[in-house]
């Protein structure tokens, strides 16, 4: 039984991304003399770099899940950063009472409205892609450019700060000592996993991504599936936007989620998912996101000078991609054929 599980893990898509993530952790632990992994208890919750990776990486993990679905459908969504800005802008404006003062700054309605706006943005993208048949890159480019403008319109181009403990909990809160955003990621992951594995949705999605025409001929409602994945992606982006805005106790429309769409796509790619669509692994994308976040944390921990950060990141990403490529990566485990 255990052998079977190990074999399944080893042959699965999740194997390489998770190995790389653990390798980064081991590398950091070694060069920091163990300091990297140390977790202490501070004010009744865990405190340490590992916790930081999970908490700061939660935004990217949410985005990576949404992006995985969209990419699996043969599309791409480059508007997620702007959607994050919109969600943060709406939530903070409602809490401040600048938007819908009748709600009296209710945090609950602020969150509902922000998530609804995210879903609406996703629906717009989905509509353009599935019904108007605009290419996904172009369709989502519209919102990528316009979305930040919409967010600035909501906040009047200013950074809106809020002072609400309830809102702050989304990023800074802890349950059982672990950061709250991590629970959001786990909840969405569990939900998405059940939805794709226990229903036919996952199969339909992969099928639409591989061959749209034959899927349609087989009776799959490709249009609706596409619409749905963009709505899901918009919702995930809104969630990420709320985490970001809660972390700085305000909405910073100029910078919230700036260029993060590229990190989200990279997470999916590092997770070993094909950018051309088709079969996918949510778990692998999550590890992809964790790898990207841990690279950032590593760079800060090692005190890499700011001038060379981008270069170091690029080199690490290239190395990781090489390890994962079939031609080079498989040489590292020559025993694979023997096992199978």
């Amino acid at each position: 039984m255990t052998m079977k599980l190990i074999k399944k893990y080893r042959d699965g898509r999740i194997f390489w991304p998770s190995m790389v993530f653990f390798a980064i952790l081991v590398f950091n632990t070694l060069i920091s003399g163990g300091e990297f992994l140390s977790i202490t208890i501070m004010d009744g919750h865990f405190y340490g770099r590992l916790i930081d990776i999970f908490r700061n990486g939660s935004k990217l993990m949410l985005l990576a899940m949404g992006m995985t679905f969209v990419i699996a459908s043969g599309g791409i969504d480059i508007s997620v950063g702007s959607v994050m800005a919109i969600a943060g802008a709406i939530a903070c404006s409602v809490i401040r009472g600048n938007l819908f003062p009748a709600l009296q700054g209710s945090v609950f309605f602020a969150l509902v409205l922000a998530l609804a706006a995210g879903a609406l943005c996703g629906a717009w993208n989905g509509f353009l892609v599935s019904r108007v048949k605009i290419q996904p890159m172009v369709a989502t480019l519209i919102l990528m450019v316009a979305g930040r403008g919409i967010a600035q319109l909501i906040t009047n181009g200013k950074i809106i700060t809020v002072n609400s403990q309830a809102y702050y909990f989304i990023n800074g809160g802890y349950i059982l000592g672990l950061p709250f955003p991590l629970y959001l990621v786990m909840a969405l992951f569990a939900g998405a996993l059940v939805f794709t594995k226990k229903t036919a949705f996952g199969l339909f999605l992969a099928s639409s991504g591989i061959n749209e025409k034959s899927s349609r001929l087989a009776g799959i409602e490709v249009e609706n599936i596409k619409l749905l994945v963009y709505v899901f992606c918009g919702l995930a982006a809104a969630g990420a936007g709320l985490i970001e805005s809660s972390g700085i106790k305000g909405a910073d429309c100029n910078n919230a989620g700036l260029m993060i769409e590229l990190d989200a796509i990279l997470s999916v790619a590092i997770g070993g998912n094909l950018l051309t669509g088709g079969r996918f692994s949510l778990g692998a994308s999550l590890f992809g996101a964790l790898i990207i976040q841990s690279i950032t944390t590593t760079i800060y921990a090692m005190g890499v000078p700011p001038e060379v950060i981008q270069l170091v990141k690029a080199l690490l990403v290239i190395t990781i991609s090489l390890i994962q490529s079939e031609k080079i990566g498989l040489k590292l485990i020559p025993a694979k054929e023997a096992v199978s």
Partner: protein
Amino acid sequence: MKKILGILLCLALAAGFAFANGSAEKTETGSGKLVVGFAQIGQESGWRDAETASLQWYASRNIDTIELHFADAQQKQENQIKAIRSFIDMGVDVIGLAPVVETGWDAVLMEVKEAGIPVIFLDREADVDDSLYATFIGSDFILEGQNAAVEMGRLLNGKGKIVELEGTVGASVANDRKAGFDDTIAKQFPGIEILGSQTGDFNRAKGKEVMESFLKTYGSEIKGVYGHNDDMVLGAIEAIKEAGLKPGKDIVTVSIDGVKGVFEAMAAGEANVTVECNPLLAPQFFQAAADLKAGKTLPRWIKSDEGIYRADTAAKDLPTRQY
């Protein structure tokens, strides 16, 4: 569907052109008013919005003596060049320009020079020959860094370990604010050690993330944080609180800009000092324009009026802050 979209797009483009041309009407000359054309970059940040608002407010208050033609270039150099050409056609007295990029201005500024109109660069400079502009009004970022260093030295009594949050890598503002600060610390405060310096990209989220990491590495050794702008320090304050320390007391803060948020933090006792980088440049700008019209020669660089604000007066200053 595609056809309809195409038509819509064409209409939008046509409307854009019509709008662009519509602004170039002739102004009445000889009314004795100071006629100024200003080519603004666009609306890239709250700071720039405050600058725009300052110019428009000042002009509207002095409507009897000043006629301001304002052009928003939406972050495009070609739009700024177009605006400058239309200012030449209008025959304005003075042209103000906040150049969006440093290069590529020689041709159009030569036309301005031939038309005999003086040019004032506001808050940014362009890489052109000295003969092509009359003066530059703007901040001295190195001086801001030096002032910040003196404040940090005062807060820590010249002794302690600090960390630095840098602006966007390669930005001249960040380079100057770092050079001014680091040099002054090294020369005047040998007791202060900069433990680490990392970029926080001028924004809150990054500032917080970098500070979190500094706190993990150096812990309570850190006695002060210097940020190249207020927003990064506002993010760092959140990180300090999460690490169980008191910002403003356990770790003192010095930052630059003087945005409203940092005044709120200072009033709450969570930040210590901000060195102002003033966007409200209208009084100095219109004064310089009037001087140029009167034929006076101005210094090459008019430094903007800037102050240093500390926590003890923050509550009093807060209501007067406009940006």
